[in-house]
């Protein structure tokens, strides 16, 4: 009975590791393949998202190697990642607006980068996760996504599903809104039990995979996409 319990636990951990360390990181290839397949149709916003995916997948690879091979603490990677993540996503949403609103988004990104630096230097050192910066970043991305749906949600020219940007913005909204609580309490989770970590990170990775799939659909739908209107 005891042996079977240990065996089951081992299996569970192995399955979990396989999912978190192999399946989910590899699922990033789904949107990348979709984007490469439709590359000649990709407009600037799609290319920004593609760059973001490639960048985050590379950083994730570094993170996984550091954790599983070198057994290192990788909290500092998140400090760097948060900055680039927000800059990429701001650049993406900036493409939907005119020069004036684009400038506001770029200024917001600049202020956020400054905030991240201050946060890392004075508030949350690289030894712990940058929950303040990451949470603020996530909230701003949720606001961007909501503003996108506010602007383009009443489009009666095309079916919702035919617009690739809808899929990408949905992916961003689902991921950042669902994981906001996790970002806020990330430092608490560092000291949590294995079961809690498994549940939370398992949930996070499932949502991340969903985000990748939605990105892939967005890239697939990019063909004959009308150029973004500005107002």
């Amino acid at each position: 009975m005891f042996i079977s319990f240990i065996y089951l636990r081992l299996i569970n951990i192995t399955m979990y590791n396989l999912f978190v360390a192999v399946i989910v990181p590899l699922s990033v290839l789904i949107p990348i393949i979709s984007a490469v397949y439709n590359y000649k149709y990709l407009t600037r916003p799609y290319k920004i998202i593609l760059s973001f995916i490639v960048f985050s997948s590379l950083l994730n690879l570094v993170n996984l190697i550091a954790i599983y091979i070198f057994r290192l603490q990788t909290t500092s990677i998140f400090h760097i990642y948060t900055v680039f993540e927000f800059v990429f996503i701001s650049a993406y949403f900036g493409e939907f607006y005119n020069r004036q609103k684009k400038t506001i988004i770029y200024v917001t990104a600049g202020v956020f980068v400054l905030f991240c630096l201050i946060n890392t230097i004075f508030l949350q050192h690289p030894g712990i996760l940058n929950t303040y910066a990451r949470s603020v970043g996530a909230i701003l991305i949720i606001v961007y996504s909501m503003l996108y749906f506010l602007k383009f949600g009443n489009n009666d020219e095309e079916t919702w599903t035919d617009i690739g940007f809808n899929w990408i913005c949905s992916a961003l909204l689902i991921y950042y809104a669902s994981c906001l609580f996790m970002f806020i309490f990330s430092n608490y989770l560092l000291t949590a039990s294995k079961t809690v970590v498994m549940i939370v990170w398992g949930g996070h990775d499932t949502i991340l995979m969903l985000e990748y799939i939605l990105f892939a659909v967005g890239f697939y739908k990019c063909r004959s996409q009308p150029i973004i209107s500005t107002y």
Partner: protein
Amino acid sequence: MQITTDNIYVLIILGMAGTFILVSSFILFSVRNQNKLLKQRQQFHQAELTHQKELLHAIIESQEAERKRIGQDLHDDVGTTLSGLRLLIEMFNPATATEGAYTSFLTSSKSIIDKVVKDVRNISHNLSPATLGYYGLAAAVNEHSSIINQSGKLNVTITNNADALLQKLDLTVATAIYRVIEELLNNTIKHSGASKANISFEAVQNRLNIIYNDNGKGLPHVAGQIKKGMGLQNIESRLLNINATHNMESYSGKGFQIEINYIFRFILISKDT
């Protein structure tokens, strides 16, 4: 202060699950709302199209009715009156006139009246081709073509492999197709400089396929698209009115071709069955 015993991790998990459900619902509602708007717009557009089609139908119907009325009036009233005038002139025999002058007057008057009668008949026929009503589309097109062939302006050849189908054509549809062919022949004579035109009627199951082509200079192109004049727009309106489709091709300098397809609402039953 009371110390809370809530498990923070459970709260995180609940928060994540709750937000996921909330956001997913928001997106699904957004999808549904947008699709609903699109559907409403499409329905409105469809209703507008139907209304325009009905207007077009009414215009064409009234135009045909008016043409028929004028044609009949010309044929019955003017034609009859002219025939009466011809008889009167023939019977008129003045006592004072010299024989030579009278005969010359008589001959020229009769030839002028004959020409007017012929012209009136042609105009009347063009306005409302009686053959179409009595003998059908094929006969009417044949008749019109033979008039053109006699004039020597154009050599029109007709290939009819859809006689059974043509016999079953509704008069409104037959009139529309006849007018289209008439307009096409008119365009060929006026603008194309062609020496030959071919009209072929083919039956493909319950579909009537008409191919018209000539060896003229084709249609002018503007930015890769065929430039359409009033005549071609009339053709399109008439075909739209009977729910027929068409495909126009212009081989820049090598002629013009149009393929018209009309689908019968009923299924044709073969004679053997």
